[in-house]
């Protein structure tokens, strides 16, 4: 059952109600953003169950930290930062990022046809990104999707800036290679 049609059409009203621990408003906020935030978590974590755990913890953190939302800027953007942080914490907790440098033999200059992305469904791209090795996936997400600089990524992940650059370059190569394979598979069919 959706509650969006009942009230709280504006995020600001919803936030105010959530701050008063109004459970109904909290549920509406969850329903409004859960699928978008799940996509964020899934893109970082790479598996469904893990992403659901992060989604759950992320919403608990959001409700706990609502008081620190200043009201300036997009509320969704603010929430998204929390879910990204939550995902990174989970990856760190599971020691996933320590193996980030393990894959060294990776092509960075992969021949790539420009129109490959045009014929691709968003879901397929999303699935490919989620199946990247953890180190590539994390740096790729932070850099390409969130727009963090290499300096910021290095600080967040506790790695050198150079490592961030090389991970991104290899991640791009990995993605292009797999996109080409996907395209080839589609053509063969």
């Amino acid at each position, binding site marked *: *059952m959706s*509650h969006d049609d009942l009230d709280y059409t504006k995020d600001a009203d919803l936030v105010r109600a959530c701050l*008063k*621990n*109004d*459970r*109904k408003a*909290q*549920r509406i906020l*969850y329903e409004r953003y*859960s*699928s*978008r935030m*799940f*996509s964020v978590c*899934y*893109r970082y974590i790479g598996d469904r169950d893990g992403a*659901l755990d992060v*989604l*759950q*913890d992320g*919403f*608990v*953190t959001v*409700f*706990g*930290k609502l008081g620190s939302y200043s009201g300036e800027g997009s509320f969704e953007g603010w929430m998204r930062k929390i879910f990204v942080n939550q995902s990174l*914490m989970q990856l760190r907790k599971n020691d996933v990022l320590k193996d980030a440098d393990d894959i060294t033999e990776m092509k960075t200059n992969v021949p*790539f046809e*420009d129109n490959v*992305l045009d014929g*691709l469904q*968003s*879901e397929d*791209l*999303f699935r490919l*990104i989620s199946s990247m090795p953890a180190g590539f996936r994390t740096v790729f997400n932070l*850099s*390409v*999707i969130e*727009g963090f600089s290499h300096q910021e990524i290095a600080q967040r992940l506790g790695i050198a800036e150079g490592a961030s650059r090389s991970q991104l370059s290899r991640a*791009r190569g990995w*993605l*292009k290679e797999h996109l080409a394979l996907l395209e080839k598979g589609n053509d063969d069919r």
Partner: protein
Amino acid sequence: MTDKEFDEKVRRMCSEMTSQQIPDVWDGIEKKLVLKRRIVMWRRAGMISAAAAVIAAGFILGYGEDVASPAGTVTISEELPLVSQNIEEIPSVPEVSGAEGTAIPSISRKSNPSGNGDADFKCIEPSPSVSSVSLPAEPAEVIVPSSASESPAPSGQVESEIAVVDRDDTYTVSDYLAFADEDTRASGRISMTASSDFYTIYGSGNVNFTSRSMSGGTSSGSGTPVVKPLSGSTPNHSLPLSAGLGVQYGFGKPTPGGQPRFGIGLGVNYTLLRSSYQALVSKEYMGKYGQGSEQASVSQNVHYLGIPVTFFVNILTTDKIFFYASVGGAAEKGLQLKYKFTDMNGEEFRVSEPVPGLQWSADLGLGFEYRFVKFMGVYVDPRLTYWFDCSQPYSLREEQRLQMTLGVGFRFHF
């Protein structure tokens, strides 16, 4: 296609992406929200009870013995005029020889190891277990208003789901601890401590009768002491009692364990020093009729309230274990010097007077903290403390200026 163009295209496609079908995890979220609310209350209750326990222990142990004065005793609360008679000149004051059978309330007799037959008294020691700081109450005992009663009753399916969660009160202590451990808000820079210091030295001492601080509060205008310990008397010092509360602020670049490298702490600390010895005491000072001095058993309490300042450096930190070094100092103000004199007839006389000046001290130590949950840990601080000569009343500190003390307590992290 350049890398920039490729990235931009990927970014645009990903930002359009939402997962349409995901399982509902709202139940789990709501359960955690309820749990979190209880933990906040539990944490507050724990801190308040720890602080209350430390303060109560200080007052009960410090003032407990003064609550009921035995019949026939004289209690003098105001400062008396000091006698000018030189007690050194009083002839033939009898040595105490085995005051067997003399009833002295609150003082227990023990044999004098020197074997000279002199009575040797020792104050009943306060229990050293000041670690009576209470742990937070069992979660099951925390009464939390149900969320259903706080917010308007929802309707339909949501209502029934919430109602189920509210009735579901089956959390175990492990649930609370595990969840509290995940609480990311609880690893901040501010800590609160409830502590108690244990001294490693007590028992018999050797009075330095020439020390000027022996005259603290006990001398006449001419510099003659009105409470003069008998030569050959062996004073006894009870285990000092010390308890306090403090606040710490962490700063500096985080350690590999994610904790601030440095910290500074400020607090308030109560200390009780107890000593007992045999002395020649001015009758006038005791509040008895007549002039001159007579022998009495002296039981002495000095109450101090101090402000310790400590600088910490985290040496090694993990999620649960912290090793640190500390250096600091304290200024302590003597609140009151209390005497209880027991004369040869077993009659008690009490005198109390203010303590002038401040007692300064410096300390250096190493500490260890174990955090059983992120917001709370237990710590042990072995410290080497030096008490400066500040003309304070005679006490254990006078005898042993450099002492090893052991601070133990709880730290709450915000």
